[in-house]
C-alpha cells in the first residue's frame, strides 16, 4: 500500500485508514476511535449519535444546540483544511494563468516543503521560524529550477500541451522518488510546530491550527492579490498571461516574469506545507498526490487563473470534505470529486473564472 495517498489525520491520533479497500471490513482498534473510523455507524440514528459522540471529545450531543455545535466545528475544521488546499491551489492557478501549464508537480512542492521544515528543525536543529523561512525559500528556488530545467524549452518552442503535461507528471514522480531516496518511504512524524492556545467560544472549541490556517491563508491571498493588482511585477504578470508577445514589446522580460510566478506559487505551497505539518503532523514522500490533486480541483472549481477563485475553491472543498467525513467517510473523496464534475457541468469556467476561449 505504499502508493496509497496519505489520508488526513487528526492530531488526536487517528490511525490511517485505507478507506477505499476496507469499507467497514476492518474494525478500528479500541482506544483509537474517532469519527472517521465509524462510517457504518452513521447509518442508524443510534449510530449517528455514536458517531457524533466520538467525533470530538469535548463535545456532547445535546439536541439542536449540539447539532449546531457539530456543524460549526466541522465547518471550522473544513475551513482549516481548505486553507491548505487554497494555498496550494493559488500556485496551480497562477502558473496556469501565465503559461497555460497544469503543473502537476506543484502538489509535490508541499511535500518538499514539509520535508524541509522537518530537516531544518530536527536534523539541523534550527528554530521553527528559520525552518519555515528556509522551507519557503528552498521551495521557491525549487519551483524556479523545475521551470527552468523541465518546462522552459518546451514553452519557448511551443511544444504541444500534452508534452508539458507529461513532463509535469515526470517531475512529480522524480520528486517523490528523490525524497524516498533521501528520507525513506515511511511515514515520518513531525515535531510540534506552533504551540498556540485554542479558543473556546461557549461550547465551541476551535483549535489553534485551524485559526492559524485560516488567518495565514487569508493574509496570503490579500498579499498576493495586492501584488498582482498594484505592483509593477504584478502588471507584468497579467500582461504576460494575456499576451506574452505583446508583453515583450513593452520591454517585459517574460522569462523573469514566469520564473517569478513559479517562485511565488511554490513559496505559497511551502507556507501550506508548514500549516499542513502543524495540523496533521505526519509526512511521507507521496503526500503530495492526493493533496495536490485536491488543490488542483479547488483551483478548477474556483475558476483557474483567479486568485479569489482558488481560495473559494479551497474552502468549499475543505468544508465539503469535513462535513462528509463526519457522516459518510467512505464517500468523502467521491463527493469531493463529484462536486467538481457537477460544478463544471453547470459552470465550465469555474465559480469565479472568466469564460475565455483558450488560445491555440
Amino acid at each position, binding site marked *: 500500500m505504499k502508493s496509497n495517498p496519505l489520508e488526513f489525520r487528526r492530531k488526536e491520533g487517528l490511525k490511517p485508514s485505507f478507506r477505499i479497500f476496507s469499507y467497514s471490513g476492518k474494525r478500528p482498534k479500541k482506544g483509537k476511535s474517532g469519527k472517521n473510523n465509524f462510517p457504518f455507524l452513521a447509518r442508524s440514528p443510534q449510530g449517528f449519535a455514536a458517531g457524533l459522540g466520538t467525533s470530538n471529545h469535548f463535545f456532547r450531543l445535546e439536541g439542536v444546540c449540539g447539532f449546531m455545535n457539530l456543524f460549526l466545528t466541522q465547518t471550522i475544521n473544513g475551513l482549516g483544511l481548505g486553507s491548505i488546499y487554497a494555498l496550494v491551489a493559488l500556485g496551480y492557478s497562477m502558473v496556469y494563468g501565465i503559461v497555460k501549464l497544469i503543473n502537476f508537480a506543484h502538489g509535490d512542492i508541499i511535500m518538499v516543503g514539509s520535508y524541509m521544515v522537518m530537516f531544518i528543525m530536527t536534523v539541523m536543529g534550527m528554530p521553527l521560524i528559520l525552518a519555515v523561512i528556509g522551507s519557503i525559500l528552498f521551495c521557491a528556488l525549487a519551483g524556479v529550477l523545475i521551470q527552468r530545467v523541465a518546462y522552459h524549452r518546451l514553452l519557448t518552442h511551443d511544444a504541444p500541451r500534452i508534452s508539458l503535461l507529461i513532463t509535469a507528471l515526470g517531475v512529480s514522480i522524480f520528486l517523490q522518488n528523490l525524497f524516498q531516496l533521501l528520507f525513506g518511504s515511511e511515514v515520518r512524524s513531525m515535531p510540534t510546530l506552533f504551540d498556540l492556545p485554542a479558543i473556546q467560544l461557549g461550547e465551541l472549541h476551535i483549535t489553534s491550527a485551524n485559526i492559524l490556517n485560516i488567518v495565514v491563508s487569508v493574509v496570503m491571498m490579500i498579499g498576493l492579490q495586492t501584488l498582482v493588482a498594484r505592483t*509593477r511585477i504584478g*502588471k*507584468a504578470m*497579467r*500582461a504576460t498571461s*494575456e*499576451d506574452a*508577445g*505583446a*508583453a*515583450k*514589446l*513593452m*520591454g*517585459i*522580460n*517574460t522569462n523573469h516574469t514566469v520564473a517569478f510566478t513559479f517562485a511565488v506559487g511554490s513559496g505559497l505551497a511551502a507556507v501550506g506545507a508548514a500549516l499542513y505539518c502543524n495540523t496533521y503532523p505526519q509526512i511521507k514522500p507521496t503526500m503530495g498526490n492526493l493533496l495536490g490533486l485536491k488543490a488542483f480541483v479547488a483551483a478548477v472549481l474556483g475558476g483557474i487563473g483567479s486568485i479569489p477563485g482558488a481560495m473559494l475553491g479551497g474552502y468549499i472543498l475543505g468544508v465539503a470534505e469535513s462535513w462528509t467525513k463526519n457522516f459518510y467517510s467512505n464517500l468523502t473523496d467521491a463527493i469531493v470529486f463529484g462536486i467538481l464534475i457537477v460544478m463544471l457541468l453547470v459552470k465550465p469556467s469555474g465559480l469565479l473564472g*472568466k469564460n475565455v476561449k483558450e488560445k491555440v
Partner: protein
Amino acid sequence: MALLTVKDLNVFYGNIHAIKGISFEVNEGEIVTLIGANGAGKTSTLHAISGLLRPKSGSITFDGNNLVTTEAHKILRLGLAQVPEGRRIFASLTVMENLELGAYIRAKENLDADFEQIFARLPRLKERRKQLAGTLSGGEQQMLAIGRALMSKPKMLLLDEPSMGLSPLLVGEIFDIIKSVNQGGVTVLLNEQNAKKALEIANRAYVLETGSIAMSGEASALAQDEKVRQAYLGG
C-alpha cells in the same frame, strides 16, 4: 547613416520562405511605408525587427545596435517601439494600466506629464481610462495601442496596419495622429495594405510582393506609378 538598416533579411516558418533576402532602410525623421497585399510578408518583417521572430540570415541595425542578437524585451530600451498588427492591447487591463505598461521601462520616472500629453493627443482615451481596454471600440483600441507605444518615448515607431478594420473617417484620424507623432520627432515605419492613405503621409515607400521588394522610391512618385496604381490603388 540610416537609423534602421535591414540587409539581406531571410525569414522562414519551417520550410516556408516568407522573407526572401530583402534590404531597406529608414532615415531619422522619415515616414517610410511598406505596402503589400495579404501574405506579402509585412508582419514577418516587423517581427524580425522587433525580435519576436528570429531571422534565418541577414542583418538588422538600429541606431548602431545589432537587433538580430538582441532579445525582444531589450529592443524597446534602444528606442524602437511597435504597434502590433491587430493592436494586441491587454484587454483585461484598464486603459490606464495599458498605458502604464507602455512605460514599463521607465519605472522610476514621473509619468504624469506623459499621461497628460497622451490624453491631449488622444482625448477619447481620457474619458475611458478606468475602463477595461477590451471594452473599447476598434478605433479606440488602435489609439490605445499607439498611446501605449508612445509611453516608452521611442525614437522610432513601427506600426503594423493601423487602419485595419476601421471606418474611413477613423482611418483619417489615425493617420493624422501618425503624422503628428512624426512631426514630434519620431521616425515611423508603417506597414499598410491601404496604399493610398499610406503613400499620402509617407516620404518613401517599399512595395513588398511575396517576400521580395518589387519596387521602391519616393512615396509621391510611387503613387503616380502605373503598376502601383493598377495593383494597389484600384486603377
